[in-house]
């Protein structure tokens, strides 16, 4: 079960596709931090990927960091391996950080269930939005951009218009 709104972000220190370790505190300069449960092989992730990349680029240099986290069991799903994460980053030049949660500790601490699934934390690193990136995996059918709306609201000092939605996607592949 996912953490509740208002819950503090769990600490982590994870290897990124850049070869460096990244900890929660490393993102302290950003007012908002979005952790996005992610992976390499899920068609839902792939369907939303361009939009997540575009959103990340739209907010470059602003008070937001987007961090994708792959927690899937790579023994049963080798396409989600760290090496493949690095390959995909080289192919697509991800504008967001992409971290490997090999122990699955972060996914468990968040109570993540799906890929993609967004956990947006405010300046105090309290959860303020949880769920889907927007309301349709079909980019032509989107009517609500939940993550964008929540980011805009929080940057303006307001409440996200929608704080929680259902994240539709693949299941997190537990060990």
């Amino acid at each position, binding site marked *: 079960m996912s953490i509740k709104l208002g819950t503090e972000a769990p600490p982590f220190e994870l290897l990124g596709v850049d070869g460096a370790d990244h900890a929660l505190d490393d993102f302290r300069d950003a007012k908002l931090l979005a952790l996005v449960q992610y992976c390499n092989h899920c*068609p*839902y992730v792939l*369907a939303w990927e361009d939009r997540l990349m575009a959103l990340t680029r739209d907010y470059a240099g602003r008070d937001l960091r987007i961090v994708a986290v792959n927690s899937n069991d790579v023994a049963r799903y080798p396409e989600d391996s760290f090496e493949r994460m690095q390959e995909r980053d080289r192919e697509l030049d991800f504008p967001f950080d992409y971290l490997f949660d090999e122990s699955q500790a972060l996914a468990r601490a968040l109570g993540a269930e799906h890929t993609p699934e967004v956990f947006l934390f405010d300046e105090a690193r309290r959860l303020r939005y949880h769920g889907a990136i927007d309301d349709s995996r079909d980019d032509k059918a989107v009517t609500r951009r939940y993550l964008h709306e929540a980011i805009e609201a929080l940057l303006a000092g307001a409440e996200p218009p929608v704080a929680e939605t259902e994240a*539709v996607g693949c*299941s997190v592949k537990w060990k």
Partner: protein
Amino acid sequence: MIELLYWQGCPSHPEAKALLEQVLAELGRDDEIVLTEVTSDAEAERLRFPGSPTIRIDGLDIDAMGANGRPSLTCRIYHLPDGRVSPVPSREQLEVALG
């Protein structure tokens, strides 16, 4: 025979089934869709199940390209005619396969 193999861990099969039923109806066909739930890696291996949903018509996968993927309990990747990725096949793909 029309078979739809699915894994409960992927949410796409109801949408795929509905689309398949719609295309069948539009083609004036009343074929029964045989549903098979795949529940284990061993079963995925035995059924050569490359992901959910997998649709076969008279034993032939509607997406030859993806048919040989590694058997696995996973969501299957399809490509729409415009190149976008989708967890369900396109209407066009089903129409061609059933045509």
